[in-house]
């Protein structure tokens, strides 16, 4: 059966080759790493000596018609990835056509309703997340400003699909377009529903087989102002082992308001989440078969030590808010310098719900307080300032100061660590030596009394545009109270880039820790070895 499917998808591609019409493109990624034992950092060897992940995406398009396949190979999967990614296969294949406003997809697809509170199927390869749907999706625009989407499918889980069937529909109306209004203020409203069907054979409990979630949203845009709000509700969905009285319903609300004009931008954001874990299989655990996406309401940092303690959303219950100010000091004065200076300020705070999330309560009518910031258990707090300044034609400088509080017990589901308070400073300098040649240096320091104590990091990178880079870095846990754990994590990398092809080779030690993208995290084990990565687009 699978063979037939593969042939069906590949045939048009071959046909295309013969009559030389349509077009083919795609991309390829390969990551290979060797693992050797390193007792000092707790790195374990692997029996295979080396592990390998590879992907090849191929898309064929002709007119309104597209087919695509992705071949995935895990022989065996890198240790950073879930070992259930195992072997080779074509888990992703689709055919799609788009005519007169009707867009039909059969096979694999990714979809998001609104901001994703009740549905987001997506891929984030670096995290090993791929919850593509397998089924049928229709998108239709009956008239200007009205967008309808509907689908039915099963959700991907490694090389398998969920037991539950997922159905959904979404409508979005751009009121100005739909009613032909010529106003300065634009209003867009939307609503969606997602429902999961899964058999229940539990002899003791009457478990709902059809579980629905609803969401409504509104976006008002006027001049430099943009206000987006969305509310979601999930009917009761007893999950897991039923040891907790988890028959509560779930809800979430998110709202953000931004204002910007030339030179300044402000963003205010808040969300409140209560019992909003929603999966394509009620018995799934961990990150398996999640249907929705509730992003972390904190800044996603790019420098290593500022993201040493990254936050991950607690969809079972949390409330938080975040403020961002982006400001550019004009050039020509002392503060702004010759080229202007950019300052980004960010503050976020996330805490537990007052009274605890609904699913932990015996009382089915229990409702945590809507807004409560004082006295609740702190989950995460981050205050940071980033300054970017071009000093002259040769030198650019960036500096970041941050103060973070991180509830390790909650975020990493451990006990006894408490809240880790840290202060972080980063300095980055880029110096242009001559045309095409630059050197970049990063110095970072994290200070904390708790957990593993103080860290420092140094990085030096030499680049020869447009083809080469050479970098060395050392991460050093010099403040660890356990003297045996005052370790160095040294890494060296060389890369060659030409057009859309990129080759990098590196050697060094990786620290055990949490790696996050978009507020979704995975734990990665420590390792010591050689890495090779090749990526290419065509």
């Amino acid at each position, binding site marked *: 059966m699978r063979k037939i499917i593969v042939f069906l998808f590949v045939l048009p591609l071959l046909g295309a*080759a013969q009559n030389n019409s349509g077009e083919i493109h795609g991309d390829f990624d390969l990551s290979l790493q060797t693992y050797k034992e390193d007792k000092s950092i707790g790195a374990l060897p692997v029996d295979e000596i080396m592990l390998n992940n590879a992907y090849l995406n191929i898309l064929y398009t002709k007119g309104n018609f597209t087919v695509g396949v992705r071949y995935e190979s895990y022989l065996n999967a890198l240790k950073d990835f879930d070992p259930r990614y195992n072997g080779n296969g074509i888990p992703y294949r689709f055919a799609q056509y788009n005519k007169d406003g009707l867009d039909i997809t059969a096979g694999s697809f990714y979809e998001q309703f609104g901001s994703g509170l009740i549905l987001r199927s997506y891929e984030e390869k670096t995290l090993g997340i791929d919850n593509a749907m397998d089924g049928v999706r229709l998108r239709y625009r009956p008239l200007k400003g009205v967008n309808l989407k509907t689908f039915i499918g099963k959700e991907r889980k490694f090389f398998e699909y969920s037991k539950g069937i997922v159905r959904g529909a979404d409508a979005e109306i751009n009121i100005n377009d739909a009613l032909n209004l010529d106003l300065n203020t634009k209003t867009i409203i939307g609503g969606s529903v997602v429902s999961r069907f899964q058999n229940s054979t539990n002899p003791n409990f009457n478990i709902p087989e059809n579980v629905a979630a609803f969401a409504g949203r509104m976006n008002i*845009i006027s001049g430099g102002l943009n206000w987006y709000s969305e509310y979601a509700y999930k009917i009761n969905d007893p999950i897991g082992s039923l040891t907790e009285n988890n028959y509560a319903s779930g809800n979430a609300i998110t709202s953000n308001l931004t204002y910007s004009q030339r030179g300044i931008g402000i963003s205010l954001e808040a969300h409140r989440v209560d019992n909003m874990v929603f999966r394509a299989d009620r018995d799934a655990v961990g990150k398996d078969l999640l249907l929705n996406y509730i992003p972390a309401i904190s800044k996603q940092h790019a420098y290593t030590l500022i993201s040493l303690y990254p936050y991950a959303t607690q969809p079972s219950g949390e409330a938080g808010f975040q403020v961002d100010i982006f400001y550019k000091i004009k050039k020509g004065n002392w503060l702004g310098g010759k080229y202007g200076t950019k300052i980004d300020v960010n503050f976020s705070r996330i805490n537990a719900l007052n009274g605890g999330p609904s699913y932990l309560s015996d009382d089915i009518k229990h409702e945590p307080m809507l807004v409560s910031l004082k006295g609740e258990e702190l989950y995460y707090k981050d205050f940071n300032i980033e300054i970017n300044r071009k000093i002259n034609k040769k030198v650019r400088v960036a500096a970041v100061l941050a103060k973070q509080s991180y509830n390790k017990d909650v975020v990493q589901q451990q006990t006894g660590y408490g809240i880790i308070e840290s202060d972080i400073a980063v300095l980055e300098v880029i110096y242009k030596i001559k045309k095409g040649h630059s050197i970049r240096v990063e110095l970072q320091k994290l200070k904390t009394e708790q957990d593993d104590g103080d860290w420092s990091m140094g990085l030096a990178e030499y680049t020869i545009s447009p083809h080469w880079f050479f970098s060395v870095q050392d991460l050093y846990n010099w403040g660890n109270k356990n003297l045996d754990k005052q370790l160095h994590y040294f890494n060296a990398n060389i890369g060659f880039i030409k057009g859309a092809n990129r080759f990098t080779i590196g050697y060094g030690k990786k620290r055990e820790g949490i790696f996050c993208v978009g507020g979704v995290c995975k734990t990665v084990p420590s390792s010591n070895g050689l890495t090779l990565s090749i990526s290419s687009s065509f």
Partner: protein
Amino acid sequence: MQKQILTLLVVLLATIFSFSQDVRKLPNIEVKTLKGDAFNISELDNDGKPIVISFWATWCKPCKKELNNISEVYEDWQEETGVKLVAVSIDDSRSMSKVAPYINSSDWEYEVYLDPNADLKRAMGVSTVPHTFLLNGKKEIVWQHRGYFEGDEQELYEKIIELVK
């Protein structure tokens, strides 16, 4: 089964390489404008002059370096070649709302679109950001580049100049 798949893939790859001369156009994919409107990327237009499409994100340092560096010379580039730069943000719902404040505070003059669930990113074979495409006056993709190092905009500019000569 696995062998057959492999064989097919090899055939496909061979096919692709024999294709390398083919023109490649923009896909028929919708993105969003900062004003919340849907926009089909295949309708991008620059009156027969080159277009640069750069995939970036507010959390991506090298992306912001690339676009800030180009921003300093963008006026000159436009005057000399008529090129238009289109910055496609792949920020998802975590940071999408910060795109407009960030670009406004940065004084970017680019055309900016949002691709929050990576539909366009996937359709154009982008796996990491930054990833930059150059389109000729007929809106055919003629060059692409992954990553950004200080000074890379020079290579891009030379490619743009070649197109308008």
